[in-house]
């Protein structure tokens, strides 16, 4: 290429053919790796070279166009370079247009953010191509706001589309935004609804970030949409995409660096309310002191040692607590607050007294609403509930599980019941958790239980730990402090926690339909059952629990919500880990064989990455079981 004679009309179609053939055979990187830098330099200022380059790509036959275009988009360092190299190819050539506007954006999702930036930047740089940019944005938004896409497409694809949308938005100019303002608004409203409906926190966050960005773009003055969510690297990266850095800078630095600098300055700012100045405003120096005779010296102060902070005493007896919490007198707010704060420790210190009134206390706590503004009210209430449940497990568990399926509770309350059951089960089954409910730092691998249940992440670690624990060690000495052993309190009550929860899941009530709309609660229920199963290791009821759980999983295995499916797979893992091997093989062989084929299916075809991983782990566990059996001489 470097020796094409200048000044003569020559046909470069031969070169195009060669280029096309090489690219289609998969050698894009090699050839374009050499070609693109050369062309970049040559076309920087020379128009003739630009036209040559455009002719080059235009002449590539259609059947190889896709590979060539893909290669160029991936190989070009920046959007303006791509623009110089490809020219208006996308406008002139149908195949190129299809590849750029449809295939790379909607059908594939493996490209990096830099590639997206190049592509969309390329589309925005020429007025002819900008119409394409708008069309692309519309199609992206259609996909983003379609509820079936949100439910069924993998999370990575949704992230890719969101990034593409944000980059498009960053390229749009005011008049263009004006013209499609209405459509942007409608898509945003629909899209945000689908995203918030999803059970996966990552998808919800994606939806929130994109909606905020769209709102920012279409409402430049006036209040913008602002959601509350935890910022993390992903959201920060997404937000940084909204701001474009000038791509014509002389220093060929990576687009990413520029973007991150600008991002700090330009993060969407909500119009803030007036900031209150702190009371300690500039203090005027007290000048009158020394000059005048201080007649204050005549006044001798009285003894003020009794002046202390006013402390409201919390009640010391459980029944007094009940009275305060149910009392309707609105004046005693201080006492109510003090009671709520002191309740957990009182319950734990007086187990006998608590057992007398346990169900009543559980009822009060379940319905307790925040009357004044206490810090950490939700946690205080939960800890008190856990304390009551662990002090008197059977009646309180009976009460709570029955209330889970009763009318007129909010979703939040039902999920609270599940959380409390799990926390209490954990406390009862672990010897180390003597009255403390801290999850981290324990020697046994712990499962994070509160919202955003990521139990799936810990399973690998749990499996490893279990394997480690079961291998015999020789000559290791006392490397760990022995844990004080206690009888497993969960043994007698595991069934009471587990079976009532699994009983009525298919009976819809007027306000609560687990198999219908309330699939979020179903997901939480399934995860809870998985945890309870896991904690029931070494209990007497574990086999019965295992069988019931397997039936339950079998009935729900094709559920459409991926959060529920993850939970079901965790259930199977817990089952395989907790139920002793002999019992599995004696009682559950046929079901497990069926399960094996189901798991294989999930592993290959399920759209959700986490589900596939969990299915794989389950299959591995089953393999381990088989091997162990074969190893033990029967």
């Amino acid at each position, binding site marked *: 290429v470097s020796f094409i004679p200048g000044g003569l009309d020559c046909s470069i179609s031969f070169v195009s053919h060669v280029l096309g053939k090489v690219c289609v055979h998969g050698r894009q990187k090699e050839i374009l790796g050499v070609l693109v830098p050369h062309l970049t330099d040559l076309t920087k200022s020379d128009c003739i070279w630009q036209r040559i380059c455009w002719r080059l790509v235009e002449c590539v036959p259609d059947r190889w166009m896709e590979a060539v275009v893909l290669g160029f988009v991936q190989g070009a360092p920046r959007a303006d370079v791509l623009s110089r190299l490809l020219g208006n190819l996308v406008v002139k050539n149908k195949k190129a247009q299809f590849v750029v506007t449809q295939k790379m954006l909607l059908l594939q999702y493996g490209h990096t953010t830099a590639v997206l930036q190049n592509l969309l930047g390329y589309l925005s740089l020429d007025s002819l191509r900008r119409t394409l940019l708008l069309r692309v944005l519309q199609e992206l938004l259609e996909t983003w706001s379609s509820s079936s896409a949100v439910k069924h497409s993998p999370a990575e694809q949704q992230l890719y589309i969101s990034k593409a949308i944000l980059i498009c938005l960053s390229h749009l100019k005011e008049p263009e935004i004006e013209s499609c303002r209405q459509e942007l608004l409608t898509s945003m409203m629909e899209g945000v609804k689908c995203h918030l409906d999803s059970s996966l926190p990552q998808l919800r966050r994606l939806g929130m970030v994109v909606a905020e960005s769209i709102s920012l773009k279409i409402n430049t003055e006036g209040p913008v949409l602002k959601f509350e969510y935890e910022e993390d690297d992903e959201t920060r990266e997404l937000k940084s995409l909204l701001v474009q850095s000038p791509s014509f800078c002389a220093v060929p630095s990576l687009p990413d660096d520029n973007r991150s600098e600008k991002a700090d300055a330009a993060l969407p700012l909500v119009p803030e309310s007036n900031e209150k100045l*702190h*009371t300690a*405003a500039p203090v005027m120096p007290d000048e009158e002191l020394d000059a005048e005779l*201080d007649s204050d010296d005549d*006044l001798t*102060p*009285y*003894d*003020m040692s009794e002046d202390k*902070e006013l402390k409201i005493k919390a009640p010391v007896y459980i029944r007094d607590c009940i009275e305060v919490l149910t009392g309707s007198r609105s004046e005693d707010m201080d006492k109510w607050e003090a009671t709520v704060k002191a309740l957990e420790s009182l319950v734990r210190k007086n187990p006998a007294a608590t057992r007398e009134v346990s169900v009543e206390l559980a009822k009060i706590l379940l319905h307790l609403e925040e009357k004044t503004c206490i810090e950490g009210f939700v946690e205080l209430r939960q800890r008190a509930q856990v304390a009551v449940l662990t002090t008197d497990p059977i009646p309180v568990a009976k009460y709570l599980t029955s209330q889970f399926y009763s009318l007129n509770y909010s979703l939040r309350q039902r999920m609270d019941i599940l959380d409390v059951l799990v926390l209490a089960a954990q406390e009862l089954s672990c010897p180390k958790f003597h009255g403390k409910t801290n999850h981290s730092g324990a020697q046994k691998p712990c499962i994070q239980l509160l919202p955003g249940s990521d139990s799936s992440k810990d399973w690998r670690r749990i499996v490893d730990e279990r394997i480690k624990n079961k291998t015999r060690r020789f000559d290791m000495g006392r490397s760990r402090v022995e844990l004080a052993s206690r009888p497993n309190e969960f043994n007698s009550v595991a069934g009471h926690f587990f079976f009532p929860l699994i009983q009525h899941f298919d009976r819809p009530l007027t306000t609560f339909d687990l198999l219908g709309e309330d699939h979020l609660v179903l997901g939480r229920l399934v995860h809870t059952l998985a945890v309870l199963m896991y904690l029931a290791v070494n209990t007497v009821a574990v086999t019965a629990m295992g069988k019931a759980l397997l039936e339950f999983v079998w009935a729900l295995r094709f559920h459409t919500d991926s959060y529920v499916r993850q939970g079901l797979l965790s259930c199977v893992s817990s089952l395989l880990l907790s139920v002793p091997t002999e019992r599995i093989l004696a009682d559950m062989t046929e079901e497990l064989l069926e399960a094996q084929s189901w798991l294989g299916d999930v592993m290959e075809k399920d759209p959700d990455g986490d589900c596939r991983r969990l299915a794989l782990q389950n299959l591995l566990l089953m393999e381990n079981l088989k091997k162990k059996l074969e190893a033990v001489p029967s």
Partner: protein
Amino acid sequence: MALPPPDPQFVLRGTGAAVHTLRFSCGGPEPDIPLLFSGSENGFIHVWNLKTHRVDTALDGHGRKSVYCVETMGGKDRLLSQGRDQRICLWDLAEGRTSVTDSVFTEHVGFCRCSLLKVAQGRWLMAMAARSLEEVQILELPSKTSVCTLKPEVGAKLGMPMCLKLWQLNCDSQPVLLAGYEDGSVVLWNVSMGKPLSQLICHQEPVMSLDFDAEKAKGISGSSEKVLSIWSLNEQQNLQVCKTHRLVNAGISDITIRPDKKILATAGWDHRIRIFGWKKLKPLAVLDYHTATVHCVSFSDHSNPRERLLAAGSKDQRISVWSIYAQT
């Protein structure tokens, strides 16, 4: 070794409801009886005889709605009271009468006490919170003509006015109003022009009460938080914070400076009355008698300094009367 704080000189019982406001009238020469007026939550204004420690008269003029402000208008024969029935009543109490001579319908549903200032013989200016949320209206009494309405600028977001104080440096100068608002700021208003002169943010919480010493151009404000704020007015009519004092317990319902400007008293939500020296805000005493929030404190206007008293009214339905630092 500091002495333990003194006990109240006497305690007045019998109001039957929480006491919200107090006003002494002891300035008259003998044989006038020193009186204490108290307004309670049951709508009654009690006239206490300080010699017999009994109620002489009970005035019922607010339809059993709480009376939260009582002011004397030059002597014990004319009284002004403000209640939760949205009315301000003017009473004629001379020669044993107990009649309401006039009333002003304020349409104010809050708790902001009005402030009176005598501008000429028989003429007063009264500042009161008006119907509209952020406004303060100045009326002339007894004619009840409106002098001006003080409206904060749009978007100022001050909230309701919580406490007012009208004052003038001397008889010839312009009257000015200090108003404490719900957002924690104190605004100095020029009454004749109806414009704010200065605004200072003193607290993070609403200003519950304020008092001002016109001679030293220094004022103090208390709020629902744990801080007392002392601020001053310089020659350019600007407010500046001088210092702040941190309290042990949060919440101040009332502050008042003694007429001789030597000490001040605060009524606290922690049931205690605190006495400070005004010069440097040196804590002098903590009077712990009441068993519920103290709503109001008031110093007497005795002409003989030795007889000066301090009264405090509380939610526990009692009025404690103290004689403290009377010797100076």
